[in-house]
């Protein structure tokens, strides 16, 4: 591998990693920090992409469709938490698995009912449609750089909120002992509703931002779901920093494995995870 190709692949890996973090960010919040096992996370990613596509074809404005999609996702999040998730806080964690698998079924059915099963795509917003030449054959699209920047900003914002603000502390405290948080006079239910909804919205926003880069197809959510869990767990539950590092690690390892070790490429991420967990049984950045 030449040096220039090495750097290009490194950039590819970083970019893939950042995208992974974007998709996993909502899960880090809902699963890592709040401790809710939401398997329907991938479905919300899919819903976000479809919403973006749907409103884009109707409004022709990427920004507008992004905003509408985010608002809809937020409302779905609030609704789901209020009516369903809330019933399960006092129960076994596995009930959340069952519930959210039920939700995957429902989201898949609704997607097929509302939007059909054809692959869809939307074009990159004009403002960001340029590209920057890297070598004489290869160039890099501006939109992807834009998304990478958003991911970094998002990571910083999440990190700050969870670790440094009172809100973040309350969310963490809720994961540890809901009853006690309530005993401090805090409306933990409402707090959890909001944070859960934000998690869902982040998943959808990831879908929106990915929409111009990926094919929007049924089942796209299930493909990313496992990758998201891998990222959150390798990083260490509840650690934003961990998730960020893990996403980049997975992105880079996966990218290089694809070209250097094609025979075991699909296994490499799992080998990585197994090794990390055997050495650090609670992930990279756990207490």
């Amino acid at each position: 591998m030449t040096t220039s190709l090495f750097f290009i692949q490194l950039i590819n890996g970083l970019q893939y990693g950042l995208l992974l973090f974007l998709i996993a960010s909502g899960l880090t919040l809902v699963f890592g920090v709040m401790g809710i096992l939401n398997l329907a996370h991938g479905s919300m990613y899919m819903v976000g992409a479809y919403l973006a596509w749907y409103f884009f074809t109707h409004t022709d404005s990427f920004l507008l469709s992004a905003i509408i999609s985010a608002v809809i996702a937020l409302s779905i999040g609030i609704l789901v938490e209020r009516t369903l998730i809330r019933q399960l806080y006092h129960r076994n964690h596995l009930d959340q698995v069952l519930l959210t698998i039920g939700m995957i079924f429902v989201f898949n059915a609704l997607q097929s009912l509302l939007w059909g099963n054809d692959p869809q795509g939307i074009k990159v917003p004009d403002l960001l449609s340029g590209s920057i030449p890297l070598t004489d054959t290869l160039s890099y699209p501006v939109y992807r750089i834009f998304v990478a920047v958003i991911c970094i900003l998002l990571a910083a914002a999440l990190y700050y909120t969870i670790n440094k603000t009172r809100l973040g502390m309350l969310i963490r405290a809720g994961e540890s002992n809901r009853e006690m948080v309530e005993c401090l006079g805090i409306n933990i239910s409402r707090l959890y509703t909001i944070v859960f909804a934000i998690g869902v919205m982040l998943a959808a926003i990831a879908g929106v931002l990915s929409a111009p880069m990926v094919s929007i197809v049924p089942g796209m959510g299930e493909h990313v779901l496992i990758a998201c869990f891998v990222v959150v767990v390798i990083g260490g539950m509840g650690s934003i920093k961990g998730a960020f590092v893990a996403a980049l690690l997975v992105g880079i390892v996966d990218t290089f494995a694809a070209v250097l070790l094609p025979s075991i490429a699909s296994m490499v991420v799992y080998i990585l995870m197994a090794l990390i967990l055997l050495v650090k049984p609670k992930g990279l950045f756990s207490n």
Partner: protein
Amino acid sequence: MLFQKRSERLFIWIFFPLMLMMPLFLDGNIFYINKLSSILIFALFVMSLDYLVGRCGLITLGHAMFYGLGGYIFYIIAPQNEAVNFWVYTFYICVISAAIALIVGFLVLRTSGIYMIMITLAIAQMFFYYFSDSMEFGGIDGVFLYLKPETSFLGIKMFDLDNPTHFYYLCLFSLFNTLVFFKVIMASKFGRVVDATRENPERTTALGYNVFVFRLASYVIASALGAYAGYLFSMQYGFVNPSMLSWQTSGTALVMLILGGMGSIYGAILGTFAYEGLHYFFEHLTEHWMLFMGSAIILMVILLKKGIAGYIEKLLEKRS
């Protein structure tokens, strides 16, 4: 008594006699008999998962790995064009998968909770991709087994596996044995420690038990039985496919288990039947069966606190 709860006895007295007579009602309709056989096989698989999850508190998302391995091991070790003995190969498959489980368990049981879920998933995915990216095992299209084993034991031929009804009884027989087997284990002194390791592993260590060894033993037992289920499945249609090892298979089994009620062992049967029943029903009702299936699952989680088995127990409690 082995079956302590009233609900349990009731279930066993209704379920097994009913299933014994089922082929009579079905009047040799091959489809229904085959369908029931595959449900029984899967119930056996879910039961072995229940032992791990519900009894040992070891949640895994990689149990399907053994389900698939059951099939692939058979494909690998059995000669291509010679019918082998069923019981001998049952033994081989259980031993080989137990050996694999011993190594895998040795690694995965170092972690716990969500980390264990993920590491079991990781190892299962490795096996999944090993088979699905391989050329010699037919890749994602899987492989075929052209000959079914024969089942003579001490010179007596008990089941003719090409006959769906015989195969059905073999499955039922296996399921019943597995149920009794798990019940005996759980009521035993070993079971007492298993219960302890689930509830409070830290305390159990402080009392002087090597928690790891007990978990490992349980993991090996459950995995061998999971592989046995996969072996039966691959034999039913003579067909092994990597999707048997996929995390979706593990997930589905987990869903059935939670639906049926964890930790009760017989709940596994209830859950499998309920899930498959709903699936079959909605699928024939509408093309958008997923919508109904999903809603039914959601409703059931919300309404049933401890799965179907828990619900039945509550009903009986109220009446007495």
